[in-house]
Structures are given as structure tokens and as C-alpha cells.
């Protein structure tokens, strides 16, 4: 997983064109996010060749998250050519299976 932040978000996510980019928006105080993390790493092993995996700590990059219209955790977004292609808001994530369903579309 590539840790993205305000300095590299544009290069690693918005301007990246080779394959879809998955961004796991998480935060220091979000227990659900932390419990999902090992499963997301497993998903990277499975889908990493087709999709680029990134994570973004919103506690340290609040403005960036809000600019991406993320105001709740966990949020999972897949970007294609810098545009949001799929968004999973917190209410749509009860387990890693929900994330996998989204990734299967790419």
C-alpha cells in the first residue's frame, strides 16, 4: 500500500493513469478502519496487479479528505484517470467483502 498525503496525492492518485487507484480513507480514531486494514492488505495481494492500492490517513490530511468530499470513516474510493469511479461510504461497509465487491468491478 502506498501512503498518500497532501504532497503526493496528485501524482499518485489524480494523475495516475496506468490502472485504477483504490484509496482507503482511514483515521487514527476509527476502529472499524483499523480492523479492516489487514483484510485490505489481503485484497491488495489478490487485486494488486489490476488496481493500485493507497491509504490516506485523514487525521493528518483533513483538508485533502474534505476536498475529496470525504467526511466520514471508513470511506473507500476507486479513481479511474483521476476521476471517482466508485465510492463506498461508511454505511455501505460492514466487512471486507463489501470492499471486494467494489474491486471486482475493475
Amino acid at each position, binding site marked *: 500500500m502506498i501512503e498518500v498525503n497532501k504532497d503526493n496525492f496528485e501524482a499518485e492518485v489524480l494523475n495516475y493513469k496506468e490502472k485504477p487507484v483504490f484509496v482507503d480513507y482511514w483515521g487514527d480514531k476509527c476502529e*472499524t478502519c483499523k480492523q479492516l486494514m489487514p483484510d485490505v492488505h489481503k485484497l491488495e495481494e489478490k487485486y494488486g496487479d489490476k488496481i493500485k492500492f493507497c491509504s490516506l490517513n485523514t487525521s493528518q490530511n483533513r483538508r485533502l479528505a474534505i476536498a475529496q468530499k470525504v*467526511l466520514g470513516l471508513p470511506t473507500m474510493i476507486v479513481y479511474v484517470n483521476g476521476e471517482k469511479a466508485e465510492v463506498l461510504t461508511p454505511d455501505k461497509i460492514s466487512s471486507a467483502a463489501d470492499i471486494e465487491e467494489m474491486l471486482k468491478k475493475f
Partner: protein
Amino acid sequence: MSNVYDIIIIGGGPAGLSAGLYGSRSKLSVLVIEKGKFGGQATTTAELENYPGSIENCTGPALTERMKKQAEEFGTEFIKDEVVSVDFTSDIKKVLCKNGEYNAKAVIIATGAEPRLGGFEREIELRGRGVSYCATCDADFFEGLDVAVIGGGDSAITEAIYLTKFAESVTVIHRRDSLRAAKSLQEKAFNNPKIKFIWNSVVTCAKGDEILESLTVKNVVTGETSEISVNGVFVFVGLNPITSVFKGHINLNESGYIPTDENMRTNVEGVFAAGDVRVKSLRQVITAAADGAIAAVAAEEYINEKFNK
């Protein structure tokens, strides 16, 4: 038949974890099945100041993590899976999950409850975009911004106070003219300069382009409506039990909660319920933990009588 556990506990919140601890300490084989996050709703609470012994640095996540570890040390097994159906008709109970089937002599249902929706327009659409049900998870997005809290009970007021650490202002919108929360909480809230109150009012609509910008608030006495500008709204208007998968297999009351006797027995032999999912007057970590302990002991007694004669 595959491995038969003594007890399967469905749900890994404080009730399930405490049942796991008591069960495995009695040398029973115990499996806890959790679909989402271990710790349950307690992981969304920043400060558990009403749990005995938790005077300082006792966050919900920290406490429930310790509960899990303690149960694990005595031998409780944990898996992440989601229950899709159950068969409680034989002596050996079957629990069918997405990734496998599990069998046990007794089952403890500790699936808990989840936040009820506020019931205003565009609520679902703006979830994770300003509409939240978890202050601990999302509070730090709102540093220096204005937020609202809907509700007047313990959860609403506790979280409103917590949010003042981040937000510029916290407006509590409550449909009555007084709070239901504990008096000590009310006092803290009334003395907090960042907290404002809008009484006798409900939120009818959330507005905003992609993210929340304002709420339409209706006074239920006068019928007047007004707009308040907020970037976040936290909804704490009660709970719904998580019992749909058990419908038709055990008795539920009209709200979906599970009635039990004082030993946590449901109407089906060998099936127990513990914690928020049960019909009870006080839904707290302390009462969930107590339920879990009682359920595990009752399950042990049941197993001894039924299977070990």
C-alpha cells in the same frame, strides 16, 4: 458432523466478549462470530466514564480490546464471518455463515443493536458526507467547523460534549423541551459555551452539494421551519436491534428485541441472548457484560444437564 463447539456466541461486543470469557474460563469450547468490528458499538464511544473502574484513559476501543484479549487468553476462538441463517430445531444448533457452517450445543445471541436513522430527507445520500452516527470516528473532520447533534439522551449529550473538543459550535436539536440524558451530563452540556440548543424541533431535510451544508429544522410546536448552516450532523436517536436473521427461529417482541428470562434464556432451549439485543431497560456496556456472564453460566448449566448426564 464437523466440530461441535460447546457454545457459539454470535456477536463480538461487550456482551459476547464477556460470555466468551466466562465460557472459556469454565473450560468450554467457545467460538465468537463477528461480522463487523470486535467491540461492537462500544468502539464508537470515546469515553466510557460510566463503566466501573474506568476512571481515566478508558476509551471504548481500549476497553473492548482488553476484553477480547482476556477472553482469548482463556481459549475463546474468534472468527470474522456473517451469519446468514440458523437452525435451532435440534439439540445441536446450526449456525450457517457466509464462509462456513458451525455447530454448537448452545448458542448465545449477542448481536446488539445499531443506530436508528434520523428520518430526514437526503439522510442516506449524505452519509459519510456530513451525516454521521459515530462521533469518535468522524469528529476530527469538523475541527473549527459547526456541527449539529440530533437527540436528547445519554448518547446524544455525551457525544455533543465530545464534539466540542473539535467543532467550533455544537447545536443540539431535540424534539422535546427537556433532555432525557443523565443530570450530570445535562449540567456539563448546559455549562459548555460551545453547545447551543434548539428545543421542540426535528430535522426535516439535509441540504448541500455533495457534502452537507445546512439542515432544515422544524419546530414541532409552532410548525415554523428554519435553516441552520452546519458541516456535520451526528444522529443519536436510539437503536434498532440486529435480529432479522433470527426471525421465525426464536420469539422477538414487536420492536425486534429478544425477550429472555433473568438467566438470559430465550423461548428456545439452548438458545440464550445477551446485551443490547435483549428486551431490557438499560443498554450500557456494564449491563451487556453482566448479561454475557449470566448467559455463559446458564449455557454451561444447560449443557451439563442436557449432554453430560
